[in-house]
Structure formats: structure tokens, C-alpha cells
């Protein structure tokens, strides 16, 4: 069993009173939007997976089913005019940042009207206009780039901030170290968010590093580090809100670790030999959507019927987006060399 399974089930769980306070601080609209986004992400990926199985997608794909609370809770904590930078497992982040799901699906299938005109694919969805500065397929590759984004935000004297997402495995790359040090040194307006899903491909966190919590690594940069129940969208929202405030007020970066779990294999080629079926089942007990809908009902934010209808409408949106995207035109291979350099 990976080191963190117990953490989420026990010590990290929010005190129900605090959770209730968080809910009370938020508007129904906001709480509902988070739920919508969680459903959209889940269904987007289920559809993506189905397309893949049907042979309609060429290439690879990294699903975040079971991890939705981390990107969605985090991004709910910032403003629309703030920025995000994410990584290969970035569907949730993209949806949370307000992407058009049809253009997203178009990119996933590699179509011309897709976000990246079919050049990027699932691993590289960016929505520049939506201030989603894209996804890198290089593990840890976004972290140094984040330094530059933070620097620009600071130098331009904006009050915007950046959320920089990466996985647990990425924290073993040298780029993580260089970026956190520079961001801490210059007090850049960045929140570094680790979607700790317990594995980097087949490597369990405890086989890849000697600290129990990735947030402990914040000590090397003298910045706050916090570990959160990453399957609790409200806890994530709360902790990232604090870190965002810190970043926005010029106090510098925070390292937030959202403990979560990936239900699916790493990518299509994964035979899951490095973990047990029991472990997966155990984590499915912490489905972030089921937990969230439970609380929404408990705190009387939404009724079961309302939730059902949100779920239904998300499913329909995704189905429609998929249909539309499948009908999108293909890009054509003319003049590819001409588009490499910007004029």
C-alpha cells in the first residue's frame, strides 16, 4: 500500500465544521460550477477513452479520472484573469480554466479547429486566450517556465498570479529545485501545486523519494508547504485560496500537495503490475465526485435531483462536443515549414 493511502483516510480529512464553513463562504453558483466541471472532466475523459478504444485517436492519452478535485478545487480559488500552466495529465485543469470542451475534444482528436490546430493533441492542450498557458509533456518541464511567467507578472506590476501544476514524479527533476528556489528568492506570484497521485508511472512515491510528504520539500526554499486531502475539492479550494492570497499579496510562492489517486493506468500501455486491484478499489472509496455531491446534499446546497440534472447535462454536453469535434475538418499538410517561425 502506498504511503499516503492512510493519510487521506485519516489525518488529512477536514474537520466537518471547517468544511461546512468553507461551503458557507461560497455562493451556490460557485459550488455548482465546481461540480459541473468535475462531471465534465470525468465524462470528457470517459469519452476520450472510448474514442481511443474505438481506434479514433492516434497517440497517447493520460487520464485523471479520480483526481478531478485537485485541478478543479485549485483553479476555483483564482480569478478568471489569473494564469495556469499544467502538464500531460491536464484535462481537468483545462476544463476548470473555462475551456470550450468542443475545441478541447477537437484537439484531442487532432482536428484543425482544435485548440492547437491538431498539432498538440491531448498532452499539449493550451487555451492562450483563456490564460491557460498550456501543457508540457516533459515531466517537470513547466516549472522553469513558471518562473518566467511569475517574473513577467511581477515586473508588469499586475496583481495576477499563476498556478503551476505538476505531478509527484516531477518533484524529483532538477527543474523543480531550480524553479522553486528562484520563485522563493524573488517572491514570485506563483502557487506550485503537486497533483500527487502516488505514482510516477510505475514508481510509487516512496520508491522515488525519502520524504513522507512532498510538501516537506518546501523547507529547502523556506516557503510554506502544505499537504491537502486532494480528493476533497473543498479542502483543495481552501488551501489554494490561502496560497493564492499569499502569492497575490507579494509574499511569494507556496508548495501545495494535493494527495489523490489515479484510477486508470498511467497511459494506454499500462498493465498495472506495480499496484494491486485492492489498492485501486480502496481509493475508489474516496471518489471526489461522490464525496462532493454527498456534502452538497448534506449542507443542502443542491438536492439529489439538481445533482442528477447537472450530471445529465454535463454528459450531454460532452457527447455533443464529441460529435461536433468528430465532424471537424482535418488539418492539411501544406506549408508546414512556413508556420514554424512567427512573423
Amino acid at each position, binding site marked *: 500500500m502506498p504511503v499516503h493511502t492512510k493519510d487521506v483516510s485519516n489525518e488529512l480529512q477536514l474537520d466537518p465544521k471547517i468544511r461546512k464553513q468553507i461551503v458557507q463562504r461560497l455562493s451556490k453558483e460557485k459550488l455548482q460550477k465546481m461540480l459541473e466541471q468535475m462531471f465534465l472532466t470525468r465524462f470528457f475523459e470517459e469519452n476520450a477513452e472510448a474514442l481511443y478504444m474505438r481506434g479514433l485517436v*492516434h497517440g497517447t492519452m493520460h487520464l485523471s479520472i479520480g483526481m478531478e478535485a485537485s485541478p478543479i478545487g485549485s483553479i476555483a480559488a483564482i480569478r478568471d484573469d489569473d494564469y495556469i500552466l499544467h502538464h500531460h495529465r491536464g484535462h481537468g485543469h483545462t476544463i476548470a480554466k473555462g475551456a470550450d470542451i468542443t475545441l478541447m475534444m477537437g484537439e484531442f482528436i487532432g482536428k484543425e479547429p482544435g485548440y492547437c490546430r491538431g498539432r498538440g493533441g491531448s498532452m499539449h492542450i493550451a487555451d492562450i486566450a483563456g490564460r491557460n498557458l498550456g501543457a508540457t509533456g516533459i515531466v517537470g518541464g513547466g516549472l522553469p517556465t513558471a518562473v518566467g511567467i511569475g517574473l513577467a507578472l511581477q515586473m508588469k506590476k499586475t496583481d495576477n498570479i499563476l498556478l503551476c501544476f505538476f505531478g509527484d514524479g516531477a518533484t524529483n527533476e532538477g527543474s523543480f529545485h531550480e524553479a522553486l528556489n528562484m520563485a522563493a528568492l524573488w517572491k514570485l506570484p506563483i502557487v506550485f501545486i503537486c497533483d500527487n497521485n502516488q505514482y*510516477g508511472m510505475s*514508481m510509487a512515491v516512496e520508491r522515488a523519494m525519502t520524504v513522507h510528504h512532498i510538501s516537506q520539500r518546501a523547507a529547502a526554499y523556506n516557503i510554506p508547504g502544505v499537504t491537502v486531502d486532494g480528493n476533497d475539492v473543498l479542502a483543495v479550494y481552501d488551501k489554494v485560496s490561502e496560497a493564492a492570497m499569499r502569492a497575490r499579496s507579494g509574499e511569494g510562492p507556496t508548495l501545495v500537495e494535493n494527495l489523490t489517486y489515479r484510477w486508470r493506468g498511467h497511459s494506454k500501455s499500462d498493465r498495472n*503490475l506495480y499496484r494491486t486491484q485492492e489498492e485501486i478499489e480502496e481509493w475508489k472509496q474516496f471518489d471526489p465526485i461522490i464525496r462532493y455531491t454527498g456534502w452538497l446534499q448534506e449542507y443542502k446546497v443542491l438536492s439529489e435531483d439538481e445533482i442528477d440534472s447537472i450530471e445529465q447535462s454535463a454528459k450531454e454536453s460532452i457527447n455533443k462536443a464529441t460529435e461536433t469535434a468528430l465532424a471537424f475538418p482535418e488539418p492539411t499538410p501544406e506549408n508546414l515549414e512556413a508556420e514554424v517561425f512567427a512573423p
Partner: protein
Amino acid sequence: MTNPETKREITMLEAVREALVQEMRRDENVFLIGEDIGVYGGAFGVSKGMQEEFGMERVRDTPISEAGIAGACVGAALMGMRPVGEVMFMDFLTLMMDQLVNQAAKIRVMFGGKVSIPLVMRAPYGSGTGAAAQHCQSLESWFISTPGIKVICPSTPYDAKGLLVSAIRDNNPVVFMENKLLYKAKGFVPEDLYTLPISKGDVKREGKDMTIFSYGVTAQRSLEAAEILAKEGIDIEVIDPRTLKPLDKDLVIQSVSKTGRLLIVHEATKTGGFAGEVTSVVCESEAFDRLDAPIKRLCGLDIPIPYNRTLEKAATPQVEDIVKAARSLAIEGR
């Protein structure tokens, strides 16, 4: 073409694994290190099952730390071990450049020749799998231009096994390129352990009208193209250097001297690619005077590899592109 005396057909992937397994049985200084090479078997399954035989020490999973992996190889090699590193995709060699170029390639000369660095870095490369710009590169030219590193790129299972064994036994850093699309390609491979000489190319098909110089997956495509053109009466010689550095110049010079025409085909981008080097080698040799037409290059477009399948195909030479280029070169200068 060297023809193995066996009727056993296995894939390139199996050939690579067999080379690793047999060398590890023979020499306890050989070990594997890389990301997810243990139970996962590596991103492409090359080392599948090997951890069971050799244990977690000799088939060592690492954190995602490419510079660390490369350094682990350099340091172990400095101590007389024979590490075989795996970089998951050749694109991630970007993160190993200091260790490979500034350390591995230079330590021997920099320290007065008193030490050697026998390491192999296996690097799956190339496009065609829909993995887009950051997972599809063919970066051989970086290493070809780095003194102190050898570069090998087999196009058949037979070559892969024999050359990988030689690479492991070689006392220098070697970047061993493995084409992802070829992993499933089958060929005859002897079961016994054997070596093939580094820096010896191979005539994959004899011909008299034109030489195609190619390696990796485009060598296979060139052979297909040659068969198609044979039906049109164009008789193509396909030569595969197998080792890109140090290059078997004699083979190229001899073949071109015979055919008078040279088409160089590779997947890597044309500008700054290996084809320029090969062109220069021929120009500087006696073969220059035997040329009946200018040397031509057919290489990857100067673009980051796109995700979309149609665009991706357009980015590198396919069989039909080779047929077209060779057909046109065949009549040039006549």
C-alpha cells in the same frame, strides 16, 4: 547483406532484450538503470521480465531524474562498471546533455587518457506514434557532432542484437538509438551471443543505378522503395551505416563510386541533419568525381513533429516519398 544462419525470427524489441539479458549473464558489471524499467518493463516493454531474473539492483528503477540517470552511468563507468541507461524517449536526452557531453564524452581526454567511460545510453527515437513534438525527435546529429561519443542506430533485429552487445563491450560512451516503429519488426536472429563490429556499415540491398544511404526505420522504407523501383528497372543499392559515428566512410565511398548517384534519407530534420555530413564525406572523397548527379537529401521537415496523424506522416520520409525522390534522381544528369 550479412545473413544470419538461423531460422529463428524475433522482433527488434526481443533482440534488444536478448542482447541485454545475455550480456548481463556473462558480465556482472553490466546493469540497467532507467525509469520504469523494472516491473513496468520500460515504456516500450524492452526490459519486461528482466527484473525477475536480475533483481532490483541490476535492473534499477529510478526517480524521474534524467541528469541523475546519466550521472549514475558516468560515475559507474568511471568505476569500471558497464552501465546501460535507458532514457524513456530520446527527447529527454535534452536533460542529460551535461552529463553526456561535458562529462562522459570529455573525461577521457580531459584526464589525460587515464580512464575510460564505457556506458551505453539506449534511446528510443522517432515519430509515427502520435506522441507529438516532445516525444518524437531524432537527435542523432547532436551526438555525431560531439567528440568522444559513438552513435549506433540499427535497422534490423540482427543488427540490433549484435551491435548492442558490442556497444556494451565498447570502452566509450555510446548513444544507442532504437526506432520505436521498428520494435515490432521481425528478423532472423541467432540465439547465441554474437557481436557485430561498430563502425562497419552493411549493404542491405545491392544495386548499380543509385545508392540510398539510410538507417533506422527509413532504411527499411528505402528497401521497400527499392523493390518498387526495381519493377521500373531502377536498381538501387541500399546501404545502412548502422554506426553513425564513427562512420564507415569506405562503404559510402565505394558504393557511390560504383553507382554514381546518392540519395541520403533520414527521419531527422534536414537542416543540420546527418545527411549534410555524409554529403561532405563524399564530396571530400574520390567518389566526388564519379558522381553523375548531385547528391540529394530526403529528410524530415524542419518542423516540430505534429500530433495529427496526417501531418505527422508528412513530417518524415515515407516509402512513397523515397520512391519519388529516387525516381527523379535516377534520371537527373543523364
